[in-house]
């Protein structure tokens, strides 16, 4: 165990919190906001169906999956930057 600068540890926490907030906002928009404006969005059409239906049946799920993979990739990079790469210790 060695002591590290608390500011460094806090900057890790801050980056993670900012990223998570962004991901959750995108996820919230893709689901709750789209549903809220479903009637208005039904004018447009995508992949052969009205846009609100597309978002519920396909769009939102795809966005959720992309968000989780983005998080995994970006978080691996952040860990590496902070020297927390767990694979090297295994």
């Amino acid at each position: 165990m060695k002591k590290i600068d608390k500011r460094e540890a806090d900057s890790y926490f801050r980056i993670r919190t900012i990223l998570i907030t962004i991901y959750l906002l995108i996820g919230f928009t893709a689901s709750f906001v789209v549903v809220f404006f479903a009637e208005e969005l039904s004018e447009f059409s995508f992949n052969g169906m009205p846009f609100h239906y597309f978002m519920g049946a396909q769009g939102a799920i795809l966005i959720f999956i992309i968000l989780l993979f983005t998080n995994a990739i970006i978080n691996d990079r952040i860990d590496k930057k902070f020297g927390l790469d767990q694979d090297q210790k295994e």
Partner: protein
Amino acid sequence: MDSQFLVSLLMILVTFGLYIGIAVYNMARQTSDFYVAGRNVPAVFNGMAIGADWMSAASFIGLAGTVMLLGYDGLAYIMGWTGGYLLLTFLLAPQLRKSGRYTVPEFIGDRYSSSTARLIAAVATIIISFTYSIGQLSGSGVVIGRLLEVHTAVGTIIGVVLIAFYSALGGMKGITWTQVAQYLVLIIAYLIPVIFMSLQLTNNPIPWMSYGQIVGELQQLDAQLGISEYVVPFTEATKWQFLALMFTLMAGTAGLPHVIVRFYTVSTMKAARWSGAWALLFIGLLYLSAPAYAAFSRFILMTQVAGSSIADLPAWTASWVNTGSLSVADTNTDGILQWEEIVISNDIVVMATPEIANLGIFVIGLMAAGAMAAALSTAGGLMIAISAALSQDIYYRSINPEATESQRLLVGRASIIIATVAAGLVALNPPGAITQIVAWAFALASGTFFPALILGVWWKRANGPGVIAGMLIGLSVTLTYIFAAKYGGFTILGIIDTGAGVFGAAAAIIAIIVVSLATKAPSKETQEEVMDLRYPEGMTYKDGEVWRTDPAEKKRPDH
């Protein structure tokens, strides 16, 4: 006994033989290299195992039928059950993993330093898992009922015997490779019919690209019949109900004890992130296909079944009418079956689809095997959660601390059998469609565990009295709202029983905050532990300072 029965039974037996075979093979290997086992499972396969754990009879049997009958309004289930993984992965999984506790009642008891809180959490685990298992038993009733061409209730009784036997043996949980096999059987069984239907109807083998066209044709068919159109939003319930249901399912996902457990048994934080991402991809494959099922089945029913002479209905209708889940009465006695005269239960759509589309006995048998895998694996896991809560958290920690290993095992086994039979009795006459019953379990989880865990992890001031008040109030508000909405016709903003979680969660969050602030702050030690959860594994917070620790080093207690 016809050939369909034999083929279906054979497919079920072969796939179950496969799961048991893999389990036995792995158990033999685990004794030799015990420490390596389970740690070298790549994240991709761990994701598949989580997928098999997650997808129950509600997803496999119930979902497509719900979307078919509710139209756009059924999509709340799809977005809710996938979106919950965002809350889980971003807000809870890393912190719960770092805390090093193995079960939800254990975490709540230690975090809030209160054995009362642990006891309430154990009781809530039992109520939630019990409700959830009613849906699974009801699902196995549909499959067995069709297989033996008996009433669904008789199928449920047979399911109860199977599940009690299966869970008392320990289920097939916890062995990752068995679950990988279950996922593969389940997803292949789900995708083959939908791909064939897509080919039949649109000449395009990719259902996700082709069903948009069918959705368009359904709109025209609905317009001709003058019924409310398939894609028009909020025809079955209000917009607020849609939003409330979606929230309930998302928050419930993040609070379901048997799902959370999967995330803290992986070897590293990195593995947890990747497993979660892969899991949602594999789960998403089924959820992306459910609306395609719904559209194709509805189209075939509207164009090929409706409009035919009542004396000349396809053979498959007779066997489903026998199970009591389909009614094709010619109510206006014109000799022709109209679309309005078909009354189909949500729960048989997926199982009946291969028959409706005439896909042959092997595909139908495969569907039966996939559905049984989904229902039995989830039910087994739920029963184990119930027995662990009863024998460990309630009996051993609160009633009889001197209990021996064999006494606890006996309590565990007995509780599995009692719980299965009790759930089976309720499932004989299911209080709702499978997806609806399962939604109540999610409502209860979002009214109790979701607030307790989120605040426990992110707010160090939350304390024991606060969480006790919060869980009790959340549980009562959710239960009261479910019953008042379902049986008393009481609703707020048109939100019905399945959306009850939004009120439960709000009440619980307010109660935890108010009561915590009104009572003494948690001990310095507890507050430090919560601060520590902010930092990744590899950093430890202590006395206002952060220390670098070896992330690979395990600090968890042995169990």
